[in-house]
């Protein structure tokens, strides 16, 4: 069973198992101000860590009990790259908003991401991005006064 390392249950079980151990350690470190365990601040975290521990172990052993692997399917190379760049764009959008300002940043983000996802009708995409930016700006900034950064153009 070499493919066990690509089994959904095994992988998530391992992650949850590790989390539960850290959680248990963390719960024990919470200062106890009450005598009764049920009343302590650490009681719920302890219950959660024990619960996650049991679930984690169950998931780890599931593929062995069922004698069947439930393979994790990740997208192929190019699709994976698209996903990663999509996430990178989100980061950039937030990071550059202070500098670019809300309208320019949002517009650029929308256009870049649409380009990344291979929009066929470019004109429709451009119009939609423009429209959405303006509508968001109107609702959030003009009406609700959300303080988005103004950026280099002043809006």
């Amino acid at each position, binding site marked *: 069973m070499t493919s066990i390392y690509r089994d959904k249950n095994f992988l998530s079980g391992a992650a949850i198992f590790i989390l539960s151990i850290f959680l248990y350690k963390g719960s024990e470190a919470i200062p106890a101000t009450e005598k009764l365990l049920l009343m302590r601040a650490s009681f719920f975290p302890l219950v959660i860590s024990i619960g996650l521990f049991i679930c984690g172990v169950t998931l780890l052993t599931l593929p062995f009990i069922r004698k069947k692997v439930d393979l994790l399917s990740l997208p192929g190379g190019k*699709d994976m790259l*698209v996903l990663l*760049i999509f996430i990178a764009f989100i980061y*950039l959008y937030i990071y*550059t908003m*202070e500098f670019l300002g809300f309208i320019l940043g949002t517009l650029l983000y929308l256009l*870049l991401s649409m380009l*990344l996802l*291979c929009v066929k009708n470019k004109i429709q995409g451009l119009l939609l991005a423009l429209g959405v930016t303006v509508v968001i700006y109107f609702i959030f900034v003009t009406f609700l006064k959300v303080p*988005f950064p103004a950026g280099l153009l002043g809006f």
Partner: protein
Amino acid sequence: MLRIGKTTNLLLALILLLTVAVTGCSSGKQQGATSGQGEKKEQGSAAGEKFPTKPISFIIPYAAGGGSDVAARLIAQLSEKPLGQSIVPTNVEGGASATGLTQLATAKNDGYTIATCTSTIAALKPQGRMPYSSQDYEPVIGYQANTYAVGVPKNSPFKTIEEFIDYAKKNPGKLNVGVSSIGSNIHLSAVALEMETGIKLNFVPDPGGAAKGILELAGGNLDAAIGGPNEFFSQIQAGNVRLLAVMSDKRNEAFPDVPTFKEKGINLEFMTIRFILAPKGTPEERIKILHDAFKKGMEDPKFKEYIKSSGSDEFYQDYKSAKEYMKKQDDYYYKLLEKANLLKKK
């Protein structure tokens, strides 16, 4: 159905990504949303110049709709006219006001960024929730106060606050008293009550504020509850709850029959006070201009009406005396937090 094949598109996107990344880096570190992008901590210009020439941004470090939000929005609205500029309130919520106040501390000290705060500010630094204390800001004005009251169910054996304290003295830790979250102002007012009278109470805290405690009080499930006088209002009207005493310096207008602790010879005065703050180093003449405008806003009949209808107390400290007042408050809160064992462990 799968049609990514256009490497050109991908390449183009990557190039754009790079250029955006480069320009992004040059913009430097992100600051708070309201702080703008100029260099900070620059002294304001010389006296006599015109201020303000653009809208003031006003940070409200609490969620929209809460008591602090309503009071701050109202005073901002009423002070715009005397100031001659608009005051734009923004809710910057989080960390029991620590997030918004940290943003203020790092904002440009030119008087165009101000914030409201409550006495909670005195509890933040000792609890390790914020690196700044009240002394790291310039107070503009103290404009409103909310006090707390001790309520008991209608059929409670305690007719006066003395009876309540006597019983608590003889039976330490026996009385169940509803308060809000441990470390909140309502809880600290109860700690102050314990400290000044030498009693010990059994606190039943609720994160939702005083509301649930008052409801349980009305249902006879608690021995007492502490909360704002107006929060008790409807249950008092219905005859389910009685107030024993209020913690303000003088009697509350809405409850003229309820004595203060001071009258009863107990040295307890506890109020949550709302101030307006500016970043440290804001020029004094600008603070004065702001102070004068807010003072006018306070004198507006609408604000007086609000003080009455919300069951709060009139309170005023000018920008000079407020700093001293806040320092005293910091020391008192430190003592309370120490007693409640809530100080940040070193």
